[in-house]
């Protein structure tokens, strides 16, 4: 038996989300005294993250290929637990694999399995958590990024192997991908997020938000009315109908904190709310609050962050 983890593309210095996913998997493998097998596109030594065996295959960014490869490898390696990231790719691949293998899935896990094997995930749009029991012999866990942090694991010597699979029928083709001109820090992976709402009054006022984000190394986000008014691009919209995020720090400026907005951010570890209305409902969900005019507070906060970084 083995624990099998999937990362379509990995580099010499894996991203934080990838290190979290690898060490989460290694932790489970070690707890069950099983080897950890990684399926990925590159041949890199990842022994420091507890990988016993790396199986390489090209074209894993292609969904049908990834699905067939995971089905094949799960069988070859007799996988008892299969782990994927709950990112854009994993959100499709994990349930496809679950149905193909008839193996129960926790979609968007935020915990390690407990002593009874139960795994937690957020439900009710972040307003509650549920513990899920996987009833099948093979268990699939798709891990929400930035949820458990990096685990301490024993170093391993990684063995290498290659996988061959038949070319599957490709029924969904990518015609093109349009990337934005200024790609900032990806919101879903960001540990720090600065978000602003209608309180900023106009799109040309976003400079002070970007200044703070740049000083912190944070991603920028916005509320729904701001995205709907096209002040900011739609991919920055966090909330019930936008992106759900769980950064370490979420700074909300001029956002009232409607329940639909909170649904996207209330699993953030620390929330700072800056609003000129001391009655704004968002303060109830915040760890730190500042009542003041964004146009005065933000430059001061940016200056204080810069001074802190230069210490």
């Amino acid at each position, binding site marked *: 038996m083995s624990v099998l983890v999937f990362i379509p593309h990995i580099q010499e210095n894996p991203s934080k989300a990838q290190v979290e996913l690898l060490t989460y998997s290694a932790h489970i493998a070690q707890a069950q005294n099983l080897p950890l097998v990684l399926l990925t596109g590159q041949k890199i030594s990842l022994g420091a993250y507890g990988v016993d065996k790396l199986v390489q295959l090209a074209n894993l960014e292609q*969904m049908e290929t990834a699905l067939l490869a995971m089905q094949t490898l799960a069988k070859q390696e007799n996988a008892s637990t299969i782990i994927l990231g709950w990112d*854009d790719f994993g*959100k*499709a691949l*994990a*349930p*496809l694999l*679950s*149905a193909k293998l008839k193996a*129960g*899935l*926790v*979609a*968007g896990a935020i915990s390690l399995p407990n002593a009874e094997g139960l795994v937690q995930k957020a*439900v*009710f*749009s972040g*307003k509650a*958590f549920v*513990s*899920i*029991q*996987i*009833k*099948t012999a093979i268990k699939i866990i798709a891990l929400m990024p930035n949820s458990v942090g990096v685990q301490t694991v024993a170093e391993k010597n990684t063995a290498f192997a290659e996988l061959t699979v038949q070319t599957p029928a490709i*029924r*969904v*083709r*990518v*015609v*093109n*991908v*349009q990337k*934005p001109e200024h*790609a900032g820090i*990806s*919101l879903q*992976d960001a540990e*720090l997020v600065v978000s602003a709402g209608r309180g900023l009054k106009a799109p040309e006022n976003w400079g002070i938000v970007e200044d703070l984000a740049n000083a*912190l190394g944070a991603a920028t986000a916005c509320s729904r009315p701001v995205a709907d008014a096209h002040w900011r691009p*739609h991919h920055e919209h966090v909330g*019930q109908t*936008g992106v759900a995020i769980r950064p370490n*720090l979420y700074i909300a400026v001029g956002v009232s904190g409607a*329940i*639909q907005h909170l649904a996207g951010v209330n699993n953030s570890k*620390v*929330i*700072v709310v800056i609003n000129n209305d001391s009655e704004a409902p968002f*303060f*109830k969900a*915040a760890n*730190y*609050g*500042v009542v003041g005019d964004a146009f005065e*507070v933000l430059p001061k906060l940016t*200056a204080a*962050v810069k*001074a*802190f970084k230069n210490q």
Partner: protein
Amino acid sequence: MNFLVCISKVPDTTSKIEFVENGTKFNEEGVQFILNPYDEWYALVRALELKETLGGSVTVLSVGKEDYEPILRKALAIGADGAVRIDAEPLDAYFVAEQIAQYAQTKSFDVILVGKESIQHNGMQVGAMISAILDWAYVPLATSLNLADKTATLTQDQTAGAVATLQADFPLVISASKGMAEQRIPNMKGIMAARTKPLEVLPSFSAEALTAFVGYELPAAKTGCKMIDADNMQELVRLLHQEAKVI
């Protein structure tokens, strides 16, 4: 072009979330249930728009008991031609996907649409699972959908603002995300017509659940918001560094 739109009922977004029976059951008392917004605003409305230009039919389907009938009637009022309720407790995502897939196998749909997730369980699983069971093409998180003779053209938001344009073959399962259509409010004519449209109730198909929800918890309540003077942002930075340890 024949569409099957899978719809679910969820607590209204402003509902109080509470659990009873030792944290094992969602307290439905006083909760208003609505048609899941992703299923309604995006999946159903886009299917209706495409049917109106291309011809064909739109069938809505729920897996659930009698308490799902109000949302099926609402979908009929918005414009669906017929409704089907598979009479079973929706045990888990795979169980639901099996019900839908086994029903679809007896019919001749070209496209199955689901909302990207229910706002109750946030699972994003059912669409993918239907496609895997039926061995149909699958496009998750689509923000637009156009259909031609042999292919569907879709867009999909990707990380950091990238937008992918995809082409997919029929038959096809699509999970619909924000942007695919605009909400339609049912009018009086639609509501009256919905009363006489067919709502078929079918017995459940044989299927098993792969998972079980064992117990719920509410997030730890915030211990109160620490207010910081607007003129003392050095203090906020200090707290974020030393107390919260996030910078």
